[in-house]
C-alpha cells in the first residue's frame, strides 16, 4: 500500500498505535493523581476526555475507542471512591461513567471520521493532480512515443506495469515496444476480448502472479483504438479494484490522445495530397499549353498551305497535307498522354450531370466523323434508356476512342455498330466492328497502358486509347471488356443506372 491511505497516521502499525493510546491514558492518570487533592473529580473527567479527544485526532478510531474505555476504567479505579477499586460508593458516578464513555466514543467517532474525510480528500486531490498531469502530457504529445511515455510514467507511479496494444487493421493488436513483458496466449485472448467487445476484462484472482490482469479498451469517439494491459506489482486484488476508476480515466485519456494523433496524421496526409494534386494540375496545364501552342501553329500553317486559294504544285500541297495530318496525330497522342496523366490523379474530379445517352452519342458521332472517312455507324439505342449520371466530356472521349479503334482495326467496308441496352440496373453499351477480331491471347492485357492489339502494327497509336476508356469507365463505377463475336470484335462497357431526378411535365 502506498502512502495515500496512511496519511497523517504515525508509522508503527495498529499495535503501536493502541500501545500509544494506553500509554496516553496511563500518563493522564499519573498526572491527575497528584492533583486529586486540588481538583474536583469533574475536572479530572475533563482531562480524561481531552486525552480521548487527542488520541482520536492523532491515532484514529480504534485507539480512541480503547482510550474511551480505559479512561472510564482508570477514572473509576484511581479516582472514584473507594479508590484503587472498581467498586462505586455513590451510584451517581454510574451516570458520570456513562456520559464519559458516551462522549468519548462519540468524540472518537467524529474526530476519526473527520480525519478519514481529510485523508480521502487529499488522496482524491493527488489522484486528480496525477490525472491532470498525465492529461497535460498527452495533450501536448505529438508522437505516439510521447503518449506511451506519459502513460507508463503515470502507471508506474501507481505500482502498475503495462503493455499498450494498438489496433493495426481488422482484429489485429500490435504490442507497442517497451511493454512490461511479452504477453502470453491467455493474455492476448483477454486483450482481444476487451478490444472486440469494448469492455474492461479483469481477472482479479491472478493479481500478483506477474501476468497482466486488467485489460482496458481504449474507446475513442470513432472506434476502439487498442487495449491497455495492466500488470500490478502488488498482490492484493482489493488494491487493484480501488484503482479501477483511475485506470479507466487514463485509458480514455490515452484513447483520445491516440485519436487526435490519428486525425492529425490524416490531416497532414490530406494536405500533402492536395499540394501534390495542385502541383500535378499546374504542371499538366502548363505542359498542355506549351505543347499545344506549337502544334496549333503547325496544323494551321500547314493547312494554310494545303488549302490556300492559290494553287500549289501537287507535291507541295501533298507535303503540306501530310505535315498537317502528322501534327494532328501528334496532338491526339499528346491529348492521350495528358488525359491519362490527369485520370491517374488521386481523385479525378468528374463533372457528372444527368443526361440521356443519346446526347453524348450524337456529339461523339459528330466528333468521330473526322476519323470515319465517310464510314457509317449503325446506332441502336434502346428506347427505355434512363438518364445517366455522366461526365459528358469524358464519356465522349470513350465513345470517340472506341469508334476510332473500330474504324482503324477493320477494313473500310466492314460495318461498325454502336448499341446500348438496359440490363439489370445497368446500361450495357457495345461498340462493335465486323470482320477483324482481337488476337485472343491479347484480350486480357488490352486495357493496360501502352499495350496494343497488334505489336509493330502500321496503324498509328501508342496503346493509350483503351487504357483511357478503362480509367473513365471505372471512374463512373462501370466495367469495360473486349470480346470476339461471331461477326467480329466488340468492346462493351456498363454504366450504373441509378435513380435519375424526376422531370416534371408542363401543366
Amino acid at each position, binding site marked *: 500500500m502506498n502512502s495515500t491511505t496512511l496519511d497523517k497516521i504515525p508509522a508503527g502499525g495498529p499495535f503501536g498505535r493502541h500501545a500509544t493510546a494506553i500509554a496516553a491514558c496511563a500518563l493522564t492518570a499519573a498526572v491527575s493523581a497528584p492533583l486529586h487533592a486540588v481538583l474536583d473529580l469533574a475536572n479530572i473527567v475533563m482531562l480524561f476526555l481531552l486525552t480521548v479527544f487527542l488520541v482520536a485526532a492523532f491515532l484514529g478510531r480504534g485507539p480512541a475507542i480503547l482510550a474511551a474505555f480505559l479512561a472510564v476504567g482508570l477514572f473509576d479505579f484511581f479516582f472514584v471512591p473507594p479508590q484503587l477499586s472498581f467498586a462505586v460508593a455513590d451510584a451517581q458516578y454510574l451516570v458520570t461513567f456513562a456520559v464519559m464513555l458516551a462522549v468519548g466514543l462519540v468524540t472518537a467517532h467524529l474526530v476519526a471520521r473527520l480525519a478519514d474525510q481529510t485523508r480521502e480528500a487529499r488522496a482524491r486531490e493527488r489522484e486528480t493532480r496525477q490525472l491532470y498531469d498525465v492529461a497535460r502530457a498527452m495533450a501536448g504529445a505529438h508522437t505516439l512515443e510521447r503518449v506511451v511515455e506519459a502513460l507508463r510514467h503515470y502507471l508506474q507511479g501507481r505500482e502498475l506495469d503495462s503493455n499498450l496494444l494498438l489496433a493495426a487493421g481488422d482484429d489485429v493488436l500490435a504490442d507497442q515496444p517497451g511493454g512490461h513483458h511479452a504477453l502470453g496466449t491467455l493474455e492476448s485472448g483477454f486483450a482481444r476480448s476487451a478490444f472486440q467487445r469494448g469492455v474492461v476484462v479483469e481477472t482479479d484472482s491472478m493479481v500478483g502472479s506477474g501476468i497482466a490482469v486488467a485489460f482496458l479498451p481504449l474507446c475513442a469517439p470513432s472506434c476502439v483504438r487498442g487495449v491497455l494491459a495492466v500488470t500490478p506489482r502488488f498482490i492484493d486484488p482489493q488494491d487493484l479494484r480501488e484503482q479501477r476508476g483511475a485506470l479507466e480515466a487514463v485509458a480514455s485519456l490515452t484513447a483520445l490522445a491516440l485519436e487526435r494523433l490519428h486525425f492529425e496524421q490524416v490531416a497532414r496526409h490530406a494536405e500533402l495530397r492536395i499540394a501534390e494534386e495542385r502541383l500535378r494540375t499546374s504542371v499538366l496545364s502548363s505542359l*498542355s*499549353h506549351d505543347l*499545344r*501552342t506549337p*502544334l*496549333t*501553329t*503547325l*496544323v*494551321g*500553317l500547314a*493547312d*494554310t498551305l494545303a*488549302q*490556300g*486559294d492559290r494553287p500549289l504544285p501537287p507535291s507541295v500541297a501533298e507535303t503540306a497535307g501530310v505535315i*498537317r495530318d502528322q*501534327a*494532328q496525330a501528334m*496532338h491526339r497522342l499528346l*491529348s492521350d498522354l*495528358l*488525359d491519362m496523366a*490527369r485520370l491517374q490523379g488521386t481523385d479525378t474530379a468528374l*463533372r457528372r*450531370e*444527368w*443526361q*440521356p445517352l*443519346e*446526347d*453524348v*452519342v*450524337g*456529339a461523339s*458521332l*459528330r466528333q468521330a466523323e473526322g476519323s470515319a472517312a465517310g464510314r457509317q455507324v449503325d*446506332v441502336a*439505342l434502346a428506347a427505355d434508356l434512363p*438518364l445517366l449520371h455522366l461526365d*459528358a*466530356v469524358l464519356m*465522349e472521349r470513350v465513345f470517340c476512342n472506341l469508334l476510332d479503334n473500330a474504324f482503324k482495326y477493320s477494313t473500310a467496308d466492314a460495318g461498325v455498330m454502336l448499341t446500348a441496352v438496359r440490363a439489370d440496373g445497368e446500361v450495357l453499351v457495345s461498340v462493335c466492328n465486323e470482320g477483324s477480331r482481337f488476337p485472343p491471347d491479347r484480350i486480357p492485357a488490352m486495357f493496360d497502358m501502352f499495350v496494343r492489339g497488334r505489336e509493330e502494327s502500321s496503324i498509328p497509336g501508342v496503346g493509350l486509347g483503351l487504357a483511357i476508356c478503362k480509367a473513365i469507365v471505372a471512374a463512373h463505377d462501370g466495367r469495360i471488356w473486349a470480346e470476339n463475336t461471331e461477326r467480329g470484335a466488340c468492346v462493351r462497357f456498363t454504366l450504373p443506372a441509378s435513380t*435519375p*431526378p424526376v*422531370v416534371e411535365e*408542363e401543366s
Partner: protein
Amino acid sequence: MNGPAPIALVVEDEPQIRRFVCGALAEESCRTREAGSVAQGLALAAREHPQLVILDLGLPDRDGVAFIRELRSWSAVPVLVLSARTAEPDKIAALDAGADDYLTKPFGVGELRARIRAMLRRQQTLADAGALHRFGDVELDLSRHVITRAGAEVHLTPQEYSLLALLVTNPGRVLTQGFLMDKVWGPGHREDNHYLRVYMGRLRQKLEADPTRPRHLVTETGVGYRFQP
C-alpha cells in the same frame, strides 16, 4: 459582300498563330488588325470598330474573359474564342461573358474559315429572316408561333417552343446550359439542367431527321448547344 471589306481584330499573343489566322481572314476578304494583349486589343477595338473579333483566352496581361466583359459593355461585335480542349469551364466563362462561339485548338484552316463566314453572315441572315426561319424540312414562324415539318404542323409545349425559338434566333452561336436554363426555366434552376437535355432530346425527336445524329440542334459537349441552320 457589299460595301468596304469588314475589319477583323485578332487578339492572340502567339505571332505564328496570329499569322495563319490573319491569312484565313484575308482569304475571306477581311482587313485584319492584330493585338498581342488585352490592353492593346481593347484599344484597337475602340478605335477600329471591327465587325469580328478572334480572341485567344490565354493572354499574357489579363484573362481573355475580362476582355470580353469589357468589350461587351459597349459593343455587340461577334467574338470567336480560341481555347484548348480540356478547358470547358473557361469556354463556358467566355461564352457567358458574351462570346459567340469557340474553336478548340488545334484547328484546321477550313474550320476557321467556315466559322468566320458564319459569323460575318449571321447579322445579315437574322435581318433577312424576320419572323420566318427554315432549317431542314422545318419551318418556324415566330410571329404566329407555328412550326411545320414537311408541311405538317408540329405540336410543341410552351417550354419546348421557347427553347427552340431561343436557339433559332441565335444561329451558329453556342448557348451555354446555364444561359438556356435561365432563359427558359428562369433563374434558380441551374442545378436542374437535366431538364434542358430531356427537352432538347424531345425537340430532336420531333424535328430532326435522325435524332441520334442531329444536324441542326447540335450538342457542344460540356458547354451547351448550338443551332446550326
